[in-house]
């Protein structure tokens, strides 16, 4: 029999939830192994290329479910490699939400105020900065000007981008070749490695079982680096503590598959999934009206025609992030770029006489692609997603060598969710069709269902065991020593981009994980500075953890 490897902590997944916990545990002295099912790409690996097999497909996981499709990262660094790096904090009212359970869904211990120091830690680490108007590309400027024209406010969104390095190539979804985007590959992960953490790419964790020693054994397969459908190896590793951070579309599936060996899962595992109330509208702007009504023009005299230029979402209107509005009617509207290959099939033709998402009129719509403006709604959905029985491996049955798979998620938007979407669609139209600026249509849900790049809440934290899979320390109920720190832990939609909140919650979860590890005999302390050595964020949270784990 081959000896089974063992370590103190295994972290599953290397996105925000995984990289942050791996860093702190390794820096505190624990032996940490990170198992990541995707490839390890950096710098020059990030192709500006849509060809199948380029980083555009290697780094992604697109899972088509029933009524909801999820786009997520699939590489070392997880979603941070492919994200747009918009990093706002969630507004205060979000933490008071009731959602589908009829009472406050967040744990009593968490509010915007109590989370603020943990947000600060993330802002220091990546770092996250405010943008100024000259950093905002044409598309953001156009959205800002249209909002202003319609009597709305609009904000440059805080970002984890080094604007000095950014060339506004708009290839950031394929990974940033210029290292301008502050992905986890540039901060937490190298710092974790410097402290001895080992990262194993192409290792897909399938299930967990308990060991006699009171720890856990993780079974993984090793996947081929070109064809992810092909298994080239496998093994198991024992750990005293497990941190699950495979993302909200994958973590619950691993747990569901482990129920046979671990025993029953909390009822909330694989339920209450939220797509962050996400929705997209495509506007085709009238170039002449942009000049006449908004007074915009580029140096060459062209008013806009700049869909391709820029860096993801840079301007949002937060007028509806008003805590006095009724729940489900609060949302933000953010300008966004979705590159070809991802973003055109679901765009619908305004006033189509034939089919809206394909056909001759769709081709005409594509002829005006340079004049597109995409507006992204993040609203309060109703946590209506449920995961069905897990597929044989991973979180989906892979169709293509990379990227495309079929998953077991089922999502049927409720009246509440639909109302929020309808209100936001109407508002986008009110802003952009005013005075003939543009023609607008929402993306269709009829093709691959609703669509999210912000999966959340499939294993959420909470105070009520009936509706939350994790306690407020992120420990899986009735399975001590298993912690979940990724987007699945977030209780519900955030009305803004989620990575900053996922990251802050992961930072906040670390002291309890350290404490649990110490109880299992791991010599580990809490209190590492930011990855670059900065200490302000750490010094601000140390008093909060009461010296519990910082000994």
């Amino acid at each position, binding site marked *: 029999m081959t000896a089974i490897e063992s370590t103190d902590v295994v972290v599953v997944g290397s996105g925000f939830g995984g990289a942050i916990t791996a860093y702190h545990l390794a820096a505190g002295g624990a032996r940490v192994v990170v198992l990541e099912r995707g490839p390890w790409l950096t710098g020059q690996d990030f192709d500006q290329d849509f060809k199948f097999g380029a980083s555009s497909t290697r780094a992604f996981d697109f899972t*088509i479910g029933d009524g909801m499709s999820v786009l997520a990262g699939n590489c070392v660094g997880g979603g941070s490699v492919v994200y747009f790096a918009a990093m706002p904090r969630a507004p205060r009212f979000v933490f008071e939400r009731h959602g589908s359970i009829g009472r406050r869904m967040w744990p009593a211990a968490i509010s915007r105020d109590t989370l603020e120091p943990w947000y600060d830690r993330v802002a220091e680490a990546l770092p996250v900065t405010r943008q100024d108007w000259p950093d905002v590309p044409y598309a953001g400027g156009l959205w800002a000007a249209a909002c202003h024209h319609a009597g709305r*406010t609009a904000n440059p969104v805080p970002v984890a981008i080094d604007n000095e390095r950014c060339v506004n190539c708009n290839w950031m979804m394929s990974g940033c070749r210029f290292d301008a985007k502050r992905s986890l590959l540039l901060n937490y992960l190298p710092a974790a490695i410097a402290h001895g953490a080992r990262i194993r790419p192409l290792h897909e964790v399938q299930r967990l079982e308990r060991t006699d020693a009171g720890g856990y054994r993780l079974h993984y397969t090793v996947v081929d680096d070109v064809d992810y459908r092909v298994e080239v190896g496998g093994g198991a590793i024992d750990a005293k503590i497990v941190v699950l951070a495979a993302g909200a579309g994958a973590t619950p599936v691993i747990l569901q598959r482990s129920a046979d060996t671990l025993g029953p899962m909390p009822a909330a595992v694989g339920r209450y999934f939220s797509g962050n109330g996400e929705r997209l509208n495509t506007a085709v702007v009238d170039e002449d009206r942009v000049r006449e009504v908004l007074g915009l023009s580029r140096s060459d005299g062209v008013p806009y025609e700049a869909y391709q230029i820029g860096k993801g979402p840079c301007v949002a209107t937060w007028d509806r992030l008003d805590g006095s509005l009724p729940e489900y009617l609060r949302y933000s509207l953010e300008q966004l770029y979705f590159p070809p290959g991802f973003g*055109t099939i679901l765009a619908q033709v305004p006033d189509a006489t034939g*089919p809206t998402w394909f056909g001759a009129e769709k081709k005409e719509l594509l*002829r005006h*692609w340079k004049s597109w403006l995409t507006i992204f709604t993040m609203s309060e959905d109703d946590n209506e997603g449920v995961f069905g029985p897990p597929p044989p491996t991973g979180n989906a049955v892979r169709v293509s060598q990379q990227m495309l798979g079929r998953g077991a998620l089922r999502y049927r938007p409720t009246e509440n969710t639909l109302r929020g979407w309808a209100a936001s669609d109407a508002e986008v139209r009110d802003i952009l069709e005013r005075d003939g600026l543009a023609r607008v249509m929402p993306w269709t849900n009829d093709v691959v269902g609703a669509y999210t790049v912000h999966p959340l809440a499939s294993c959420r934290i909470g105070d009520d065991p009936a509706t939350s899979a994790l306690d407020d320390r992120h420990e899986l109920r009735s399975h001590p020593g298993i912690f979940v720190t990724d987007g699945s832990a977030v209780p519900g939609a955030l009305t*803004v981009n989620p990575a900053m909140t996922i990251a802050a919650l992961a930072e906040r979860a670390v002291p309890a994980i350290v404490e649990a590890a110490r109880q299992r005999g791991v010599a580990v302390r809490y209190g590492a500075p930011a990855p670059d050595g900065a200490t302000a964020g750490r010094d601000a949270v140390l008093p909060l953890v009461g010296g519990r784990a910082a000994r």
Partner: protein
Amino acid sequence: MTFEAFADTILPGEKRFPGDVTVAGAAIGGGAVASGAVAVLRTDEGGMAPALDNLAEALNGHAGGYAAERGLSLDPAVPPFVALSFPDRTELVARLTAPTHPERDIWVSVAMFSTIAFDAAAHLHTVDALAAGHPGMTTMGFKPPQADGLWRFPEFSYGRQLAHPHPDTTPSGSPA
């Protein structure tokens, strides 16, 4: 031929030569077919290739059924789906991809691959596709890279304040 006709229904183009029966000529300029839809469907990476023969048969079966239902007589010299007129192809594809159709996943996938051929030339390096005048990306006006094959846009911003920020913005730049 069958998949050319399907892809041409998704994003139509002009006939490539007189008597081109698969491309219906329902639009000017090259469509999904001229953009390489069949090549994209045949790539190893896409994962569709092994299923294509069966899918063509299934699609032609649906076309035959559709024609019978409508009392259409189809040219026996070409596969039934190809023999349908453009409006009939469109109607049939709309049915097959409708939310309630049992095979919708499959036909949506074929539609996705057809679209990706047009808007992203997924079977070619993007630099090469643009240099060769790829019909789809050229129609969209996708800008070419700089001389080193990389995209950069030195001019990218109107450079001035264009709206008032929300009054409840915190010092971190976030909503309060």
